[in-house]
């Protein structure tokens, strides 16, 4: 803190701490904490609700008894005795009625109960969708890496620098164009009457219901997120000294050995970034399944989350779903960092 004040002066230092604090605590940490908290409770019947209802039943019986007593009291000998008895009975009836009212509100007012059942709510069907989403995201990541590694390597190391810059600029265009438009293009292509089915028709196949079967989602996902793999890979490979490759070749390494021993180890931070981004975007993608399936195929996990919140209005279960997704993504980040031996610091480009 003294260092900060010394570097910027007290007012500026205070402003810096304040702004960072609002961002890190107010925008990043607090919402996550509240979301996790929300996933851990639900509104439930109060504890001992069963006993309460037994008690209420008993009180109703008592009320009936009092009504009988009251009828009996009318036939008492002296009017004064009758009045006294009636007053006594009425007072008791009022007391019992009040107690019933109190117990009934207690019985019917839900209380916040801490529980893990929100997570258990997922059930077989939703669990299967969750697993399908995660597996698809893993597959998208693997495919993207396999497709992009040769591309990134070829651009970074085999093209002359000027042309490499030009190629990357060309790739920026599909990368920068809105994700929705990229997905929409594939919706058109894979549509029942789209160009792909038209081409298949010429071969006497189809038409294939790509969109309705859900396979279109996967194809469009690869397309939508593949460039998030290219750029990080290209950035690290560009910094690889060509002399290292040549030295290895000079020492007798074969192409695959050069990649395994020189290029891939150098590219670790880029691989980590690319895989994390691709996985995270695919696993949490709402737009791609939303647009590609048009609601005709089984939903993906992000859609389930959306439905919990905005259709079923069950925010506690929705929060539990969101936290599950968050946990998987966080786990994937740690896994990649562990596997590739990179730290978060290396990841920033």
């Amino acid at each position: 803190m003294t260092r900060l004040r010394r570097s910027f002066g007290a007012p500026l230092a205070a402003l810096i701490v304040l702004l960072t604090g609002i961002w890190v605590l107010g925008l990043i940490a607090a919402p996550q904490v509240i979301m996790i908290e929300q996933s851990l409770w639900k509104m439930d019947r109060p504890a001992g609700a069963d006993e309460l209802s037994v008690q209420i039943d008993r009180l109703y019986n008592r009320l009936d008894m009092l009504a009988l007593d009251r009828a009996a009291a009318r036939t008492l000998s002296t009017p004064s005795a009758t009045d006294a008895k009636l007053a006594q009975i009425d007072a008791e009836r009022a007391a019992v009625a009040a107690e019933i009212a109190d117990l009934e509100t207690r019985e019917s007012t839900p209380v916040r109960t801490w529980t893990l059942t929100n997570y258990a709510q997922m059930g077989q069907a939703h669990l299967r969708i969750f697993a399908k989403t995660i597996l698809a995201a893993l597959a998208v990541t693997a495919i993207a890496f396999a497709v992009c590694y040769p591309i990134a390597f070829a651009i970074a190391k085999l093209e002359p620098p000027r042309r490499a810059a030009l190629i990357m600029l060309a790739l920026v265009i599909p990368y920068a164009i809105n994700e929705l438009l990229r997905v929409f293009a594939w919706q058109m292509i894979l549509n029942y009457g789209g160009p792909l089915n038209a081409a298949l028709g010429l071969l006497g196949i189809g038409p294939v219901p790509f969109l309705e079967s859900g396979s279109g989602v996967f194809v469009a996902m690869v397309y939508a997120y593949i460039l998030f793999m290219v750029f990080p890979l290209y950035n690290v490979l560009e910094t690889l000294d060509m002399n290292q490759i040549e030295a290895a070749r000079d020492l007798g390494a074969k192409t695959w050995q050069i990649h395994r021993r020189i290029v891939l180890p150098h590219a670790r931070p880029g691989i980590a970034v690319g895989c994390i981004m691709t996985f995270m975007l695919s696993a949490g993608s709402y737009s791609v399944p939303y647009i590609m399936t048009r609601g005709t195929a089984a939903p993906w996990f992000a859609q389930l989350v959306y439905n919990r919140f905005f259709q079923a209005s069950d925010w506690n279960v929705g929060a539990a779903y969101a936290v599950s997704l968050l946990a998987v993504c966080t786990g994937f980040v740690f896994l990649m960092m562990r596997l590739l031996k990179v730290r978060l610091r290396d990841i920033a480009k």
Partner: protein
Amino acid sequence: MTRTGSGLLLRIYMGVFFLYMFLPLAIMVAAGFNDYSPPSVTVWKGFTLHWFTELWQDRRMWSGLANSVLIAGAVIALALPMGLAGALLLGRLGSRAAGVLYTAMVSPLLTPGIILGISTVIFWRGLDVSAGLFTAILAQTTFIASYTMLMFMARLQRQDGALEEAALDLGATPFQAFRRITLPFLRPTILTAAVIAFLQSFENYNTTMFAIGGEHTLVTEIGSRMRFGLSPAINALGILFILATVAFALAWAALKAHERRAAEQAT
């Protein structure tokens, strides 16, 4: 011989990859000029600009555009100071504290967008603020400030620490040194960060969709129309997006080339 052979193979592979990247966009563009609805390229009914006029008259698109610009402006106003403050703070902390803070500040980039949106809405609902433009702004700021922070951090790392010290040594107060030395040094990054923040905000779908409640932006509106792909007006809008992106990329490249030439002349 094998070297050139594998080189050729790589070339072909790259060509296929580029075809894969651009052909879908070309198909979408073509459908935007086809006088046939729903958007199609298999049935060609002739060239038309009709869909552009239809788009022009679409009120919801215009209000979405207004919201998008409003949100982006607010996000810039929040994410730039926050990202800069974070980067400055990071540079003055011990390595342990800096590590923790850094992790916290980049974590939104590693979090699925829908979670940022959802958690923001949950948080503000607890304070009786319902989802809308406000929550969309905050949810976007959460991760866009991470981008600006990284940009400022990279720039600050390239600054020669001796410059600020020289200013102090010559009698500047810390604030003066910051204003006269560091801030001018950061100016180009401030501009770039503002542009990046604008684009990130304007184009965002996943986070916004979950955070915006009943309101809409241009992109969420596109999303809700696309699902059914009814009118090629969406394609027309896509064409405009592509044109803007291409123009932007070219301008960017020109600017970079200009900067590089200026730098070469300076040395």
